[in-house]
């Protein structure tokens, strides 16, 4: 089931991955900081020793007979080297910065001395290279008394960095060990917690899987607040499906009855004719009526199916229909029936105006075809009927009127029930159901009203479709 975006990855895996990624980045930063701090602590500790060596060397320098002399005992250096696994070298520069004693390969200090140091001495610590090896160097300004004043010589002591590195590495490894264990424990904990948190989902899933596949009953499994909307939506979909299914079942039941009745009538009529019970001409007339009835029912049922199929499709929503042209088309289409019954038809529409409505043309055509067919059927031979179209403010009224008997009180109540037509010779009663379905689908309203008695003393029915401005988005005047 693809619910979350495009990727079907599970929420649990996704959450765990994200949390672990955040955790790992945090640990990497943490470890880096810890390593830097460790390195600094090691440097501070060992720089002190380095400074002590520089001092010891500096103390051996004397100014005698106008010359600088260093009486560094080799033992001193050995003492220094004994406490470190690396090498220790030194260099002393005279007052003018020229090499005095020690290792000339050690580059002279060319930086500045910091004004404040943590030690009570003018000393600078820096990293340099000696014989292609990285070394930590201290440069110390050592005052030497030259009789009248003190002058400064520079003492540099350099130490290779094996020890410091080894210590830092050791600290790093132990940090990493701890972090790894920490991470594993946390990952397991997170996985388990998420698993626990997600349990309602699997409970719901199991409940759904265990349902009767035909059941459309609402889901009653308790769900946490986050899942409630989904459960409610599911229940709503199922309720809608249930309604559609109910409608369909009722429709199929009614429809099969309605289709079988004319077929049964046909069969009886054929048998009567075969046995000679009725005159052939009478039998044929009866048969023709029955066939027409079955045809009409079949067509109407297909129309209902098509209305349902078109409902809400973009095709149905984006089409526009010129109502005046449509009314004229329908009149032409129905003209053979009008001619046959010698009816007096009139289309009354505003002159030179095309009234456009946004809605699927087939639907509106089917709507008025049904209303016209009703009107023709109910109007007595020679009677009058017609279509009126009147723009009325924001509303467009299109009505079909006839001069039949209108509707009595009893028939009003059953008007929109399928297959409830009062008159067995009249339609199936599906026509108005179709009309109402279509009106609901295109956002129009259907009103039926008995007409007042006119001057000829007949009344009849007026079926008015109200296309509201909301759906009739364009009422354009078009010069014809």
């Amino acid at each position, binding site marked *: 089931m693809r619910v979350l975006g495009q990727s079907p990855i599970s929420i649990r895996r996704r959450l765990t991955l994200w949390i672990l990624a955040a955790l790992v980045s945090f640990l990497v930063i943490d470890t880096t900081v810890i390593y830097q701090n460790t390195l600094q602590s090691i440097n501070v500790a060992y720089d002190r020793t380095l400074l002590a060596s520089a001092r010891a060397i500096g103390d051996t320098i004397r100014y005698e007979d106008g010359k600088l002399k260093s009486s560094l005992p080799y033992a001193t250096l050995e003492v220094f080297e004994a406490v470190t696994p690396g090498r220790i070298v030194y260099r002393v520069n005279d007052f003018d910065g020229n090499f005095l004693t020690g290792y000339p390969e050690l580059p002279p200090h060319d930086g500045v001395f910091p004004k404040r140091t943590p030690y009570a001495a003018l000393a600078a610590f820096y990293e340099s290279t000696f014989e292609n090896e990285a070394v930590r160097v201290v440069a110390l300004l050592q005052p030497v008394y030259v009789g009248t004043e003190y002058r400064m010589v520079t003492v540099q002591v350099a130490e290779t960095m094996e020890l410091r590195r080894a210590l830092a590495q050791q600290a790093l490894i132990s940090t990493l060990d701890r972090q790894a264990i920490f991470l594993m424990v946390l990952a397991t904990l997170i996985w388990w917690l998420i698993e626990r948190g997600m349990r309602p989902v699997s409970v719901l899933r199991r409940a759904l899987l265990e349902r009767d596949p035909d059941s459309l009953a609402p889901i009653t499994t308790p769900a946490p607040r986050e899942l409630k909307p989904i459960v409610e939506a599911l229940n709503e979909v199922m309720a809608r499906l249930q309604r559609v299914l109910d409608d369909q079942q009722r429709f199929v039941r009614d429809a099969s009855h309605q289709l079988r009745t004319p077929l049964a009538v046909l069969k009886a009529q054929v048998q009567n004719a075969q046995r000679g019970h009725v005159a052939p001409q009478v039998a044929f007339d009866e048969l023709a009526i029955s066939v027409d009835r079955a045809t009409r029912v079949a067509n109407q049922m297909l129309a209902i199916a098509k209305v349902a199929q078109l409902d809400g499709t973009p095709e149905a929503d984006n089409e526009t229909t010129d109502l005046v042209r449509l009314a004229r088309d329908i009149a032409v289409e129905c003209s053979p029936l009008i*001619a046959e019954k*010698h009816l007096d038809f009139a289309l009354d529409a505003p002159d030179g105006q095309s009234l456009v409505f946004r809605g699927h043309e*087939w639907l509106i055509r089917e709507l008025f075809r049904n209303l016209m067919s009703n009107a023709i059927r109910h109007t007595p031979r020679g009677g009058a009927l017609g279509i009126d179209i009147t723009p009325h403010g924001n509303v467009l009224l299109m009505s079909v009127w006839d001069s039949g008997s209108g509707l009595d009180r009893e028939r009003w109540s059953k008007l929109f029930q399928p297959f409830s037509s009062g008159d067995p010779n009249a339609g199936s009663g599906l026509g108005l159901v179709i009309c109402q379905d279509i009106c609901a689908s295109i956002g129009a309203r259907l009103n039926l009203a008995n007409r007042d008695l006119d001057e000829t003393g007949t009344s009849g029915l007026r079926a008015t479709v109200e296309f509201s401005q909301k759906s009739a988005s364009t009422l354009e005047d078009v010069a014809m």
Partner: protein
Amino acid sequence: MGVTPPLDKPRLLVVEDDPALAQALALALSRRGFNVAQATNGRTALERATSESFAIIVLDLTLPELDGFEVLRAIRAKGLTTPIIVLTARSTVGDRVQGLRLGADDYLAKPFDLDELEARLHALLRRSNPGIANKRDFGALRIDEAASVCYANGEALELSAREFTMLATLIEKPAHAVTRDRLWERVFGDGREAQPDAIEVVAYRLRKKIAGLDVELVALRGVGYLIREKRSE
């Protein structure tokens, strides 16, 4: 190709897979003056349509082996211009449009009226072969289009050219309304000088001239006109 000598019966190819309907159609159409050949599937239909000569092909859309649309497309692809009338139980607008686009000349939804089918067949014959059926009868009227004369009970009616055109147009589809716009087109052509209600004037005169006959001109107000036989009561 499809050219039938005027005195012969027009030859039809009826393509229909339902045997009962095929038989009923063949009987009805041969009684109504057609020479009927049959095919019960798409492949045979295509073979016969391409190897023989027919005035009209009556084609069902739902066929075994080769769909009616395919037959239609194949026939037109071979350059045959034989008029084709499509019969179908699929009465959706989409099917109709597709059928007409693929080259069908007319379209009739099942179940249909045999009289309607006959009228459509004659209309197609007239269209594809204007020489043969230029005399038409309606009630007491006989229209001779070639001579532009209309006879009432055998005697020539005195009609103006416009009245004759209007009457002939209406009789093409008896008892079926023709819109004012269409009548205007036929009667006045692109005559822009005519008044908007000129068609009503022509109709008024025509109505007076056929007043005593068994046919009458009926107005569908706001729509157009039709001609029908008078009530026989």
